[in-house]
């Protein structure tokens, strides 16, 4: 009887010690990690600031929009219609 009780106590203690780590929270500083960021071509939903002329979610259309905007807005030679 005594032997069984000691055995039971020993098993209980082992189980408690063994499972204690399961409830442990990650303690490293990057445990939470950086939040996931969406790709810019996904757009800003129905924002009033969104530029028309491209389709949100379509990467090709977004890239084309930025390329033409850069050429039109920043390349004054093409903007003025000057010969290259």
């Amino acid at each position, binding site marked *: 009887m005594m032997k069984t009780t000691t055995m039971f106590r020993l098993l209980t203690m082992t189980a408690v010690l063994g499972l204690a780590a399961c409830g442990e929270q990650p303690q490293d500083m990057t445990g939470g990690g*950086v939040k996931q960021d*969406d790709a810019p071509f996904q757009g*800003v939903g129905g924002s009033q600031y969104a530029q028309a002329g491209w389709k949100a979610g379509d990467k090709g259309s977004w890239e084309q*929009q930025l390329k033409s*905007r850069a050429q039109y807005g*920043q390349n004054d030679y093409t903007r003025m219609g000057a010969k290259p």
Partner: protein
Amino acid sequence: MARMKFICDAERCIECNGCVTACKNEHEVPWGVNRRRVVTLNDGVPGEKSISVACMHCSDAPCMAVCPVNCFYRTDEGVVLHDKDVCIGCGYCSYACPFGAPQFPSEGTFGVRGKMDKCTFCAGGPEEHGSQDEFEKYGRNRLAEGKLPACAEMCSTKALIAGDGDVVADIFRTRVLRRGKGAEVWGWGTAYGTAQEKKS
């Protein structure tokens, strides 16, 4: 698409600080924080040169390398961004950055130092695009709106060019060929050496 890049044409920059103002207005950046600055060499001397400087979104960013909490990440477009919820405001990125891009607002969790703030290439941060949270922490997300950074789009002389690296290089190349000079982008010689240095 290549990588998003800024180029500042020192032959055109007139030190008007329009880029600085555009940035502050667009993102409602608080007092004491300048995501972009105009630096002038030999100020007041004939032949002075000015250049607009902000985060250069480095390919091998020193700020990312030294950050002890890994709050930085790089988007597919090559824009270096950071998560302010992870940043602890230690300032290591400020010591590592050769351009002095990281800024530390005087208000916030860490008193006088605050969480780091820097140019986002108008790409917001890791919050829902166009949300109030994103605006308050990182400013407007113009890239997701289908626009380019406000500083470059507002530049009156088009000295500051921003966008896809291929397009930016193409615009700059056309410009240099048309005017026949000024191919030396400011800092290029320091970083990569000049023709004279290479010969000797």
